């Protein structure tokens, strides 16, 4: 009971995830700044932002449903934290909690924040927020399919639906990773939509619809929402690195170090995407996801099925 509570609240749960997410947010911003030939923010910037937002006045719009409006950020953060519990952090042979099918659970838990963004925008009863909310949902229907298929394709080859099982399979057969490279590319591009980052940051597009779904959120609620987004970045990076970069060490300390290195590699790639692209329009985004990413992911699944068939 106590150890479970420790895992949920401190490590690798809320506290560790929160601190690591803020550190990630700093690295992301710093790298982005360096790529623009700027100095960038100091290391404590995300911590300062968080502290400031916690201490600010929280305004709830008159037309908004108070209870839903307040609970949505908490729901988003809780879902992301719950998803992180199932992602192996220090060891893939002895994962913390793992069962056959946790990959599906993690993917669905990662969908909840997006739905919270949608509902948050919808309940704000502001025009900008509503547009942002509708965009968030439209986007969800386009990136979710290629993202799911890209993450499930390696699972088909490995013949297991647990994240730790997939990692262990590819660690035992390292050459099979090369087959999954197209799926890796699809997952990296599609998760930009999930994380609402450039080029798919349409729901919050601050230059056209102010800041979309978060327009009416302020103070503490905004801080929790921002935290949920930062944590989602860590969870997605950890998930992708567990499936596509399954290098592991038997020693828990080394394993944890390897986890940090792997997630940092994913972060650098995501940041390069963000820095080198501009925002696309919503219909371009939908077209791209359905016409290019989805067929690529389908081909990957077919290839993996064939490889698995020929191995059997």
């Amino acid at each position, binding site marked *: 009971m106590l150890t479970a509570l420790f895992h949920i609240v401190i490590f690798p749960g809320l506290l560790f995830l929160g601190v690591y997410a803020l550190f990630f947010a700093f690295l992301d911003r710093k790298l982005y700044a360096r790529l623009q030939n*700027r*100095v960038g923010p*100091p290391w404590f910037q995300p911590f300062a932002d968080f502290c400031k937002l916690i201490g600010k006045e929280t305004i709830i719009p008159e037309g908004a449903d108070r209870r839903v409006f307040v609970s949505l950020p908490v729901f988003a953060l809780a879902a992301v934290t719950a998803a992180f519990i199932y992602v192996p952090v220090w060891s893939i042979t002895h994962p913390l909690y793992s069962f056959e099918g946790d990959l599906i659970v993690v993917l669905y838990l990662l969908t909840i924040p997006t739905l919270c963004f949608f509902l948050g925008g919808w309940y704000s009863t502001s025009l900008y927020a509503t547009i942002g909310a509708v965009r968030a949902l439209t986007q969800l229907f386009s990136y979710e399919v290629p993202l799911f298929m890209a993450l499930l394709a390696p699972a088909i080859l490995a013949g297991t639906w647990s994240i730790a099982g997939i990692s262990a399979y590819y660690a035992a057969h390292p050459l099979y990773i090369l087959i999954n490279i197209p799926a890796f590319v699809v997952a990296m591009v599609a998760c930009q939509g999930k994380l609402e980052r450039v080029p798919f940051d349409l729901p919050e597009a601050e230059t056209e619809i*102010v*800041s979309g779904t978060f327009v009416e959120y302020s103070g503490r609620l905004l801080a929790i929402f921002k935290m949920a987004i930062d944590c989602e970045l860590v969870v997605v990076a950890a998930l992708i690195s567990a499936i596509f970069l399954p290098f592991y060490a038997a020693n828990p300390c080394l394993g944890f170090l390897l986890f940090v290195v792997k997630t940092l590699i994913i972060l650098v790639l995501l940041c390069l995407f963000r820095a080198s692209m501009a925002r696309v329009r919503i219909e371009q985004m939908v077209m791209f996801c359905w016409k290019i990413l989805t067929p690529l992911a389908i081909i990957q699944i077919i290839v993996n099925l064939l490889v698995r068939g020929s191995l059997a």
Partner: protein
Amino acid sequence: MSKNFFEKAVDWGRRKSPWIIHFNAGACNGCDIEVVDALTPRYDVERLGLLQQGTPRHADVLVCTGAVTLQTKDRLKQIYEQMPEPKFVLAVGTCACSGGIFDGCYCVNGGIDSVIPVDAYIPGCAARPEAIIDAVVKLLTALEQSQKATE
């Protein structure tokens, strides 16, 4: 009364993370271009933790340019009231400080401080980006002093 750890952390956060929103109250666009200039990678205000926000709900500092015209008077008030506490106002340019050459014009209400309280004035026609950044730093230093005084 001394402040506890959390209050100190919030105070520190306020000094280190001023998010701004830019509002044109009736400027000739000269100061607006300088404000946008100050936000470019060349001046890199993110060093100070400064970020531009789209909505007043996320902002701490309202950066106003231009003399307040009768048309924008109510809008300026509205934007100011939409910002969550604590909030600060920067008046950028001579017109924003006092009305400038438009003072007394039939359609002009006066400087920014004729409508909402102003925390820092930046003179200049147009105000230079360096002056704007300097004003932000001075605002944060003054904030630190007032925080120390209440400790």
